[in-house]
């Protein structure tokens, strides 16, 4: 069995990759993909933790012992999907007005 540290290393690598992408990319589509990457890194660690550290206080109920982390993952994916739907809608709207979607261009909204 692969140890927990292996999963966490990959998760940290993916998360860092995502953060870097968010910071340095100018295309909002790519930024979104990077956010997905960060979310998935988190999902990975959630699942790994659930597997390696089952809830000791719970009784034999499977759902309570092992599936807590999985449920979190489902929630994260659902929220991420909703967020992307909204985000893409905004990006479409911006594109219609300005004919480009460079994120630096959006800095006109600064304070």
């Amino acid at each position: 069995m692969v140890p927990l540290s292996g999963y966490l290393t990959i998760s940290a690598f993916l998360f860092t990759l995502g953060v870097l992408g968010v910071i340095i990319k100018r295309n909002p589509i790519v930024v979104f993909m990077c956010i997905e990457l960060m979310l998935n890194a988190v999902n990975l660690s959630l699942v790994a933790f659930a597997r390696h550290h089952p809830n000791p206080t719970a009784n034999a109920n499977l759902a309570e012992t092992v599936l807590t982390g999985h449920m979190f993952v489902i929630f994260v994916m659902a929220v991420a999907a909703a967020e992307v739907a909204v985000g893409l809608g905004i990006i479409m709207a911006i594109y219609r007005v300005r004919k480009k979607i460079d994120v630096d261009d959006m800095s006109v909204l600064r304070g």
Partner: protein
Amino acid sequence: MNDSFAIVWWVPGLALLGFLFQAMLGKWLVDRLGAALGKRLLGTMAVLPIAAGFVISVILLQKVLALPETAKYAVQTLFTWIDVHPLLVPFEVLVDPLSVVMCLVVTGVGGLIHVYATGYMADDDDYPRFFTYFNLFIAFMLVLVLANNLVLMFVGWEGVGLCSYLLIGFWYRDVFNAKCGNKAFIVNRVGDWGFMLGIFLVFVVFGSVSLYASPENGGRSILQEAPDVLAQFFGDPSLGNPVFWIPILLFIGAMGKSAQGPLYLWLPDAMAGPTPVSALIHAATMVTAGVYMVSRCHVLFELSTEAMLLVAVVGAFTALFAATVAFGQFDIKKVLAYSTVSQLGYMFLACGVGAFATGMFHVVTHAFFKALLFLGSGAVIMAMAHEQDMRKFGNLRKYLPITYACMVCGWLAISGIPPLAGFWSKDEILAKVFGAGGMFGDNAAWALYAIGLGTAVLTASYMTRMMWMTFVQKDERWRKLPETHHHDDAHSHHELDPHHTPKEPYLCVWVPVAVLALLSVVGGIVLAGGGFILPAFPHYFEVFTHFSVATEIAHTAHLSVPLEWLLAGVSVLGAVVGIAWSIRSYRVQPQDQELGVEVEGWRAKAFAQWGYDGMITRTFVDQGGRFAVVLWRWFDAGLIDKVFVNGIPKLIETVGHAIRPLQTGYVRGYAAAMLFGVVVIIGWVFLSAVAR
């Protein structure tokens, strides 16, 4: 509580209604009915409430006389005015001998002055405004004299101050008059400051401000409780000896209103107002308020010999000082103004030696003859085309025989010639001062008596000077005036020129003068004379006011009858000497009457009030102005405006400018900032975990 006294509310009430009538309908009526008829109606409506007030005062006099000797007072409550525990101030008035006497003087003499004013002001366009103020003045003065607590008295006190301001500056289009009104108001405020502090201290010490007890004010009476309450404070330093400070603070208030000592300055300038105003302020109302208040609160004064001595000394000093200044004046009304200051000093001198009843008696007789003198001088001023400089008068007895005859009564009365009114009160004051040795020590009493007597000589002398320059001297000095060519406009006052012929004033002007002349002649002998000549006849005034003011001052000596006769003789001698001296110098030598010649020597100094007015102006007005400029430049413009009002926004703006570049609007910038923050927090948590 006696409901048969409820009628007292009409005394100030009617004056107040008169004020409302003048204020609301006055101008409308004049516009509607035309100037002549409208003014006649308004004049009548102005006099009526005061006359009715006088009639009611007479009824009150009857009622008070009928009260038992031990409780000669009645308190009437209208409503509770201030009720903030523990301060309870009902709106209530006090009817007792003292307030009734004052009501009679205010409505009686004040009413006569109203009658006079209907004639004097007949040519003035602001007729309704004048009588609005006039009636309000009387209303406030009646509130002052009738008030049963110091707070309500203060309402009247401020009210007459307001009305004096309005009336002195009545002809406000001339900036000088407006300034005189300001001066009166500001100087009075200095005194009011003392009076207010006195009221506060009274409340702190007594827990009440009511003069006489009634169920509505919680049955408290500062006058009746004073000896007991203040006895606790002898030697208690925590309140700085209220036994001394209460009377002193109240006296500072009285000094302002009654133009004493350092605060007399406003009164001569009050001459800027129309003559009836001068008469009303000087004789019947405002300036007597201080003497009245001191007499009213006499219990508080009597407990402190130091305070009494201060009152006496300030009074004596003011009497002498103002009498000397009167010699330097050429404005006929200013002579009378300084004379008023001097006579008020006399009244305070009487109060200072504990002769409060005598002081009030002088208030009454002074109201008669000073009102007479003012109204008489007003008649002269009218006859001389509103010229007030005595250097331009002379020989007026030929043209104004009635005015002259009346003025002679006033002149002899104020000089202290028996049996006219002034003699009785003035001689009584001097006798009481003479007997004050037990109180202040013989030396002090002698000094005060000497000042009083000297003032009496000077009074007789400067009044003679005024009479001689105005009426008696043969040369008609206005004949020497340069010719003035002016258009004969019926509406404008024509100027005094060599062809001017003085004429006696209208009927409604000289009739009040004549009535006052009669009062000046008989007023004293009727009220006080009996007891002096025949012991069987009482001194009516003293007997009547006994309940309110005549308390036995323990140390005042009772003078023997021969000594009283001697003192009276000395007083009369002093008056005769003063008159003779003036007649001699003004008959033989025309001294300062030459037109256009500046006076020199001591008269010039006297004219300038021995430099006092100038000193005050330099010290307080000029330096105060400089101080205000400093405050404005450094504190207001420098500190408030520059540092606070403009400085704080500037600081925020600068900081905002400095950190504005941080808000780039780049999403990645914000994300990097968040990342940085997260790293710092995690690092900090990690390091602290390691350290533990």
